[in-house]
């Protein structure tokens, strides 16, 4: 934002163009051509017969109620900016005095933001999402497939691509979110999540987590993610496998970039993932058009 006016513009605001109405197309064309030419040759351009300087307002606008109105609007903008500044500020007495909940209520959703809006940030955790399925190979036989590494498949689309599509980050985002929740759940909560729940989508897990004394908000976060991951795994498995998918299972991996001092000996790609595995879930049934649209993404048709 800057407050310079154009010092090279000698046009006098008083020299406004006349009211002549020109309906002749050839003259109008000529005017447009003159404008085009003047844009490419500013030194030769006629300066006085055109409009007043861009953005100029007659002086009387700075007087009376109009000025008060604009000043009031500017004050609102400043107050808004102070609220945003408090929202972005680190936790502390000033932010606490303003009330973090009140600030969040004001900011959400239209002015939602965080301190890390500007890239790049320091990151060092690599994450992975892997899925597998139980498929009906014939009327009486259900077989387990091997693990499919969804994030590894996504990485292929990121190669030599400075502007990858958003779906190529979907599996990683799901893994990142679930890893965070799994750490918060604690050992007891993770044991519940790891148990098989083939007789109902998520409900038994939520009840089990509540029995473990897990915070209800955390249970709600996990349930949302579990639902998303089960749907994603179901869609992905059906898109990748030929046989009917009966149940799905997913696991999320996490590995940390080794210290920079060890860079000649080991890189993050050399490390094994630390894995959180959830129990088997019934494959979610979807409509044919939804599955077909998902197939298009997975298979790249």
């Amino acid at each position: 934002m800057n407050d310079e006016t154009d010092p090279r513009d000698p046009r006098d605001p008083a020299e406004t163009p006349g009211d002549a109405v020109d309906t002749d197309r050839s003259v109008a064309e000529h005017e447009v051509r003159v404008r085009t030419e003047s844009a490419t040759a500013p030194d030769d351009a006629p300066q006085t017969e055109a409009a007043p300087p861009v953005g100029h307002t007659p002086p009387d606008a700075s007087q009376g109620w109009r000025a008060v109105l604009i000043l009031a609007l500017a004050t609102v903008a400043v107050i808004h900016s102070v609220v945003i500044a408090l929202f972005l500020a680190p936790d502390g007495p000033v932010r606490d005095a303003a009330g973090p909940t009140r600030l969040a209520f004001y900011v959400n959703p239209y002015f939602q933001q965080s301190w890390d809006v500007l890239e790049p940030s320091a990151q060092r955790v690599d994450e992975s999402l892997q899925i597998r399925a139980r498929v009906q190979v014939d009327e009486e036989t259900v077989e387990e497939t091997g693990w499919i590494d969804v994030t590894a498949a996504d990485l292929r689309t990121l190669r030599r691509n400075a502007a990858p599509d958003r779906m190529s980050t979907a599996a990683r985002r799901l893994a990142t979110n679930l890893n965070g929740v799994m750490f918060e759940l604690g050992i007891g909560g993770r044991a519940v999540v790891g148990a098989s729940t083939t007789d109902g989508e998520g409900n038994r897990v939520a009840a089990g987590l509540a029995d473990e004394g897990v915070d209800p908000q955390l249970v709600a976060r996990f349930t949302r993610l579990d639902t998303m991951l089960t749907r994603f795994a179901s869609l992905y498995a059906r898109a990748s496998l030929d046989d009917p998918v009966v149940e799905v299972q997913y696991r999320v991996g996490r590995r940390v970039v080794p210290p920079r001092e060890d860079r000649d000996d080991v890189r993050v790609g050399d490390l094994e993932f630390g894995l959180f595995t959830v129990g088997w879930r019934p494959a979610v049934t979807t409509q044919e058009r939804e599955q077909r649209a998902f197939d298009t993404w997975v298979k790249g048709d």
Partner: protein
Amino acid sequence: MSESRGEVVGWLTQSRHAVHALAAARIGVGLAVLGLLVTNFGNRQAWVGDASLWAEPTRAVSRFPEIALLDGVSADILTVVYVAVILAAVAFVLGWRTKAANVLLLVGFIAVTGQNPLLSTASDNLLRIALLWMLLMRLADVWSLDAARLERPGSEQAVPEWLRTGLHNVGLLGLGTQVALAYLAAGLAKVAQPQWQQGTALFGTLQLPEYRPFPWLSDLLSVGTVPLALVTWAVLVSQLFFVPALVNRTTRNTVVVLAVAVNLFFGIVLGTLWSAFAVVAVTGLFLSDDLWEDLGYAVADVTAPVTDRIVDAWYALADRVEDWWFRFVLPPVDWVRATVFRR
């Protein structure tokens, strides 16, 4: 006190500020949205359409009313709306019916990206906030099709000039403060961490597979101590000193150029080009307006041979359409009016 109040009122009411910088911001924001939408067009169904049912739980807790516009719609309707938002972005870039394009782009952008909050990025927030503040501003005073249209005799404005100017400057104040706060918050958060002070903070980021579209480039920057420190400190300086540098014209322009370069550079290195473009678009607000104007002339000089040919071709086409209209369309219409309706 009254003198400073007079200065503030004068700044707010007497003329619109940063008209070239805001025209550039309009073009940049439009291109960032356009790039995002075009890049994701092929996978739109899995991202925000029929096949995004996997993201429905996060959609359900979103507070944006705009997402109802596309929630559960058919693939065809999604495509129509998606293309309409792309066209709004094109109109916004060209400055054609800019205010209407701004409204459509804001609503459409939220409706599309809001369908899948899990895959939204920080730059989505920045673009949305910029488009919101831009509703108050005059973005098409220069470098736009509207500027040519509104200069024609007889063109009228719905809003009085004094109010347009006042709202423009209030919007500029709001968006400028928002961008400054983003830089300040990012810079302060970084400088508090020892790894940023030591110049090693970006090693991990540059080693992560998801941020290595060009592995050789990432290794070139992260393996050597000096290159890593240089790029890390360039990021830190451009963000931490952005706001303090605004007080002086020279330092302001310098830090803006540095911030733009850093953002574009890392947009390519980390594969986050459209996010970087969004940040660059609003960062440019702080470059002096006369420099933007000079840049505009320079671009016009360079592109003149091409634009002149396009304008000539356009006039030739318009002439042919007009000839065709008078020779083949109007005569039968006149005949029908004269014989059938007897008017």
